[in-house]
């Protein structure tokens, strides 16, 4: 029951996002607006609703499962992009490697390292 009550609140957040999205100057998905709104609600109430916490844990664990059906399609349309395969693969592999390297370098330079020791403790 707790999970269902929490799920209802997530749906309310999503519906709120859907109602706000048309008024926004940029095309943000309703889910992201709902997430930001819910964070704001937690902030105002000074804590997380137990019902929402109960449903969030399993739902976040399911994220990979939820993306999977979209991935299946690529195997069926891959042929259409066969002549671009080299450009696509190099762009994704090298581009991502380069962007991870720059992110880590930037974060390492800018994030204060003092607290790092506490976070690595088991």
């Amino acid at each position, binding site marked *: 029951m707790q999970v269902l009550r929490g799920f209802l609140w997530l749906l309310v957040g999503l519906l709120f996002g859907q109602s706000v999205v048309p008024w926004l100057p940029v*095309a943000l998905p309703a889910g992201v607006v709902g997430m930001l709104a819910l964070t704001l609600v937690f902030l105002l109430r000074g804590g997380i609703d137990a019902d929402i916490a109960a*449903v969030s844990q399993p739902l976040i664990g399911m*994220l990979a499962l939820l993306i*999977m059906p979209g991935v299946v399609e690529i195997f069926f349309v891959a042929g259409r992009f066969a002549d*671009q395969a080299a450009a*696509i693969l190099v762009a994704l592999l090298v*581009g991502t490697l380069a962007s991870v390297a720059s*992110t880590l370098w930037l974060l390492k330079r800018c994030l204060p390292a003092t607290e790092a020791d506490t976070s690595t403790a088991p």
Partner: protein
Amino acid sequence: MNDAVITLTELLTRWFDTPIAAIALTLAAYFLGMQVFKLLGRPNWCPAMLIAALLIAAVIALLPVGIDDYQRGAAWLMLLLGPATVALAVPLYQQLGQIRALWKPIVMTLPLSATLASLYAVLIAWAMGAPPEVLASLAPKSVTSPIALSLTEELGGSTALLMGALMLTGLTAIFAVEWLCRLMAIRDHRLIGLALGINGHALGTVRAFEISHQAGAFASLGLSLTGVFTAIVLPVAWHLLF
């Protein structure tokens, strides 16, 4: 024999008339993928999700049902992506104290990191002669799928290619973060989480939650900020360039 085949075809068509068969197939492939993943010794170059997606593709290719029949049913499962995105508010709120203490470095690094995540790939593909449709499908490659899907539609890319790009980016990001962190002696879970969320969207975030709760929360932060930033900047930058 022939009658049996026809009956089987009829049965399968009836199965896929409702979303049940597609959802059952997805769940079965997911659990089987997890099993195979464990049997292979949890290789980080081949996550359970990729194995499961290949299994589903193989089943669809073998059975007399089309990818459209499957997608129509699986769309019911993907509906949950919306509430799951809203649910990310919980880890985000839990780390708000940490985030508030670090807002300055985050504000300084995140926009540049998110821009580079998209820019590198687009520049490489452009230099190698890829047409605008392909560039539009690659540009949102580091953004979480609900945002990326609406972005690529707006820019005129292919959603199927984008989903493939998202998966490959997620895998490469997980691999690159783990490899480079070892190389650069980075053990700070906040930093690892942020890097996974900024570059590897939901896949990276799932991986970050496996590392630690803190890494997961920072990955959710990286994922959402990258998503919001890219959703605002990419369409504007795109229309200036093309």
